[in-house]
């Protein structure tokens, strides 16, 4: 994101809205964006309503109010002068928007948000089948962001377990070698709001993956969220629960349920 300094009146509303805390007040009294911290999510531009006032008008109001010993405070969800300006993003910076702005659709998967269908369409795709587990590691979430070099570090740590990195996932599509988890060097310094490493393995391998994730803690700067998924058994029970518990981890009481209403329903040969 960029801020048009000719328009900005330094009200500071965009500072709090920014999920990465990338906007602050510059020495000239106007807001400025730290381009390394900014993940191009455009939240500031979308959420703050452009009031469209000319800057001189806001300045005049401020002066009048000051004479009355009052202070100008814009409503919290507006940009008084429409100073926020989304730039034209070039590769590899464009990746920031693809992974951080939920309105942008990932070109490689055709999916918005974090770019993967994972179990949300499992009823029709059969992405996870009987005996298989899906493990999703989302780096940068919640609220901290992540560089792809951290994503690569985690992917490479998991690679010796011989995971199947999901091909219809935008992180996998940035890998130059899915056997090692190595990512394209051009993207490593790019920062995104979050990115999901998605692997498929056999249910009985879940403990190995969780222990490996445990071991690499401390090797990255990024917070990550972990999810485990599987295809339910015919009686509705969840096969991965046993393996997660055996590995010594606690599952939360809430989660995501695919109701199985998609059509055509994926048919497994064994069922």
């Amino acid at each position, binding site marked *: 994101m960029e801020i048009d300094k000719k328009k900005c009146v330094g009200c500071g509303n965009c500072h*709090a809205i920014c999920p990465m805390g990338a906007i602050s007040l510059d020495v000239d009294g106007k807001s400025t964006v730290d381009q390394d911290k900014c993940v191009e999510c455009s939240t500031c531009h979308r959420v703050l309503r452009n009031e469209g006032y000319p800057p001189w008008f806001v300045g005049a109001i401020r002066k009048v109010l000051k004479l009355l010993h009052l202070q100008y405070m814009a409503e919290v969800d507006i940009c008084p002068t429409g100073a926020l300006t989304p730039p034209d993003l070039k590769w590899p910076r464009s990746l920031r928007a693809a992974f951080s702005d939920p309105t942008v659709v990932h070109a490689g998967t055709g999916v918005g948000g974090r770019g993967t269908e994972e179990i949300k369409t499992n009823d029709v795709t059969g992405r996870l089948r009987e005996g298989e587990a899906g493990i999703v590691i989302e780096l940068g979430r919640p609220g901290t962001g992540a560089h792809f070099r951290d994503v690569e570090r985690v992917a490479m740590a998991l690679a010796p377990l011989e995971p199947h990195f999901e091909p219809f996932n935008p992180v996998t599509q940035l890998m130059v070698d899915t056997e090692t988890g190595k990512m394209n060097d051009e993207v490593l310094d790019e920062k995104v709001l979050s990115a999901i490493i998605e692997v498929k393995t056999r249910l009985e391998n879940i403990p190995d993956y969780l222990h490996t994730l445990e071991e690499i803690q401390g090797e990255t700067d990024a917070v990550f969220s972990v999810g485990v998924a599987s295809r339910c058994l015919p009686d509705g029970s969840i096969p991965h629960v046993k393996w997660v518990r055996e590995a010594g981890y606690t599952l*939360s009481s809430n989660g995501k349920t695919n109701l199985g209403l*998609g059509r055509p329903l994926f048919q497994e040969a064994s069922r």
Partner: protein
Amino acid sequence: MTNTLHRQGAEEDLKGDYVIFVSMAREINKKGSATKIHEFLRICKKYNPVNIGCSKWGSVLQDDVEFDDLIANLKDGSTSGAVFTDLDTLQKVMAELIEADLGISINVSGLLESVQECCHGNGIERHSVEDSLGFWESQDRLPEREILELNTLCGHGMVSFNLIHKMIDYLKLRRLTPKEAARIMGKCCECAVFNTDRAERLLEKMLES
């Protein structure tokens, strides 16, 4: 919507927080899905969700988004969702969606056992489940529990920690009511999964304490 499973909170609070949403598989049933998504949203709207919308056009909490415009502009594959605050309503919505037989994937984020009850109440068995194992690594970078509960109400984490702190400050200064603050936070959530009702209650609780 991948991340609605990581919503934080005590079980009592989670009892008032169910997100229902549709997803289409690119190579299988995305084509021609716009009318089905339209019907999904129309059914959800009938049961007065606290939030509703789609990731492409935003939520009804946003200044320039009207429900009628939103459904008129739907395209094939628009990931859409709605938020309900009680199980009875969720069960009714689910029943009508099963009856409508839209043929697109429908997911619910919420307490797994409660959602399973709803499935059984409607005569279906759940297909797949994703569980959260919480947040790992560098947890010293995370704020206190209450802030995380509000932040995770948006699946993509668009409600910044700083905004939440600012909203709390404004409540203390009586510049905003909890309802207004919840709506402002909800505007940041493009996919319409932010539960304003729960956010309002959380803010009230924080003010009291």
